[in-house]
């Protein structure tokens, strides 16, 4: 695929997303990997409620949403990186670092909450910038760069904590992840993490429809073409890394409240987030996928784990399940998008677009 200047003389077909009636479009969406994950979430939910009806009560459901919020937020951030054709492996280490920073710097001082919160966001953004620039300017593959960031941050945390638990920060800070709005009809307590997730999900969906989001997908699909079209590839990718590190930071802030300070918090988050993203039908290697599907992927994953727990499967199997899911989801998503793409473009079978699911191999 070294010839990005293929001239496609056939007229582009109309965008199918605007074709047909609303129910037809919903059905068509559900048949894609990105929409299918919503169907999966509903199926899993039904299965869990069948296994344990209490889970279906609004109070339980909203608590589950609150609990899943950090991982869903991480998946939203990871989406932007993956759709641009890169990986962010430093996510878990960023979460841990932020958790430890919150624990050590805030302590029991209410007055430090806001300054430390701002500091954490700045640190998060900086990590994203470093990841982005090292990937785009130094041309180091992103999974090496972020692996390096991950190790550097882990070493820093180990040095700072000696690998052991620290004291929790002041309760007012922990309220962000532990508290909620009380007395809400139907659900009782509306957890703050659920609210934060809603706001960020809307923001991510909006961002995805903006020029930034659309160009980012184009970068993931074909960076060379996008560059020739005049887009700043390094700028776009760096911004994606910043979004990812910031989402890890927000996840960390929530986790400090939800769980407390411990060097194991955030462990494995990068893989859980990547699993969630691919489960949401986002193609590894970039160029295909929706932000909200990534968040839905996080819910599907957590629901699956909950179902396994309710069915009495030991938690030690969790990693195995996650491993299998990654393989299956990548395989299914790759094929499904491919089928869709070929069906959409019957007139141009031999263009550069024949196998969009494996764009990584072309670079």
């Amino acid at each position: 695929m070294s010839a990005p200047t293929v001239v496609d003389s056939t007229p582009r077909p109309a965008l199918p997303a605007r074709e047909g009636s609303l129910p037809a479009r919903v059905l068509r969406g559900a048949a894609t990997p990105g929409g299918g994950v919503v169907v999966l979430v509903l199926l899993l939910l039904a299965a869990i409620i069948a296994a344990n009806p209490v889970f279906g009560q609004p109070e339980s459901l909203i608590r589950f949403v609150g609990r899943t919020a950090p991982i869903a937020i991480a998946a939203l951030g990871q989406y932007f990186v993956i759709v641009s054709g890169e990986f962010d492996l430093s996510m878990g280490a960023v979460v841990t670092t932020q958790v430890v920073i919150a624990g050590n710097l805030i302590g029991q001082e209410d007055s430090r909450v806001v300054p430390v919160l701002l500091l954490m966001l700045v640190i998060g953004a900086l990590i994203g910038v470093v990841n982005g620039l090292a990937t785009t300017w130094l041309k180091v593959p992103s999974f090496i760069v972020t692996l390096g960031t991950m190790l550097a941050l882990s070493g820093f945390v180990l040095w700072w904590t000696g690998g052991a638990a620290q004291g929790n920060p002041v309760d007012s800070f922990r309220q962000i992840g532990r508290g909620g709005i009380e007395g809400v009809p139907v659900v009782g307590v509306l957890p703050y993490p659920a609210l934060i997730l809603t706001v960020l999900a809307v923001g991510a969906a909006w961002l995805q429809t903006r020029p930034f989001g659309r160009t980012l997908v184009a970068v993931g699909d074909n960076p060379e073409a996008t560059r020739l079209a005049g887009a700043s590839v390094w700028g776009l990718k760096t911004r994606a890394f910043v979004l990812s590190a910031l989402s890890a930071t927000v996840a960390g802030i929530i986790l400090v409240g939800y769980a407390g300070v411990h060097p194991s918090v955030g462990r494995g988050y990068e893989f859980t987030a990547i699993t969630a993203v691919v489960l949401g039908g986002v193609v590894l290697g970039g160029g295909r996928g929706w932000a909200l599907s990534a968040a839905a992927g996080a819910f599907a994953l957590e629901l699956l784990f909950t179902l396994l727990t309710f069915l009495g499967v030991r938690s030690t199997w969790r990693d195995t399940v996650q491993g299998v899911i990654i393989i299956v989801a990548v395989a299914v998503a790759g094929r499904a998008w491919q089928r869709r793409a070929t069906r959409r473009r019957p007139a141009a079978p031999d263009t550069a677009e024949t196998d969009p699911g494996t764009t990584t191999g072309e670079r």
Partner: protein
Amino acid sequence: MMRTTIARGGLAALASLALVAGCSTDQSLDNPPAEEDPAAAEDTAGDTAEDTAEDQAGGGSDEWFDQAVYEEQDQQRSATFEGPEDQPWLQYIDGEMADTSEYTADGPQKVCFSNASIDNPWRQTGWITMNQQLQVLQDEGVISQMETRDAQADDNAQIADIDYFIAEGNCDAFVISPNSTAALTPAVERACDTGKPVVVFDRGVETDCATTFIHPIGGYAWGIDTAEFLLEHLEEGDKVIALRILPGVDVLEHRWAAAQRIFEDAGIEAVDYFTGADPTEIKSIISDELTTGEVQGVWMDAGDGAVAAIEAFEDAGRDYPVMTGEDEMSFLRKWEDTGLTGLAPVYSNFQWRTPLLAVEKIFAGEEVPREWVLPQEPISEDERADFLAANEGMPDGHYAKFGGEDLPGYPEVWQERIIP
């Protein structure tokens, strides 16, 4: 360290994105079990020679259960301890004594300490105490210096450390806190072969060549104390959630093997989970269990994460469970705040003082117990206030029975918690 392991696997996993599962499975197989475990490293004294690290496959508790050792530890819980009343770190159960007259030495001697790790709050607290004890013995002219190597929970690193000490350390005595039982045995034997005194503490090795082996009673005793406490406050048919750090670490397994047996016999429904001491995981587990039904008791094989477990009940708006944690300050404080019915089993942290005091005795030619079994008494609700008051101002990761009140630097050194 956990992170490093994931990272190593990470490259491969991303190449195919297939090895995610493999990464975590490997940790318990190709590394010493305590490596990524914050609390596991602390215990393990009870693992005497009959436990082998090959047993790591985990699974049912039967393979971890040794009736004879169980009964021995059960009796030791009520044993009479010899030695000074107010210095539990010098107490021991009457037994065979080792003659040390051949090691009698004049003037300050050099001690070489091979440490498994300081990667959990229990070991960090003990390490601080040990350094203050060292200061006393240096001032008294018993020890000239202590050269320490920290293996960071890596068997191979610790074997290399010990061999370095033997070859180039110029050591007059060895103090070894082994990372794992089977793997470190040959290295400890090589240290014994030098003819210098060897003091092993905390976890054991499969040889009795050491001059003395220092440890609190052990894992079964912990299991018996905690399970019997829960039984007192629960009824038949009640449900207990057992939160365990990870499978395959012998003494953690002993704690659970003993407790599980007692729960079974009493008709208590006990469900065990591995948490990796991750509070996020602990909260999810308990939330799910509370969604499924009532939970009357929580049992922990180490106190790390106890606060998260209690908070999960608060978040779900349920009554507090009957619970056993550990003598870590975070648990003692939360226990008092909530007023729940609880017990703080103790894996005597003061044992970190004993090895250097043993070295002092050995160089003086005084006999020491060949197996130095230290007291291991849980903290009950009645005693809690005293321990909270005595440890006021200590950080959450501090252990109430650290036994360093009479050492120089008390209390600032432990309050500041600067790891030497």
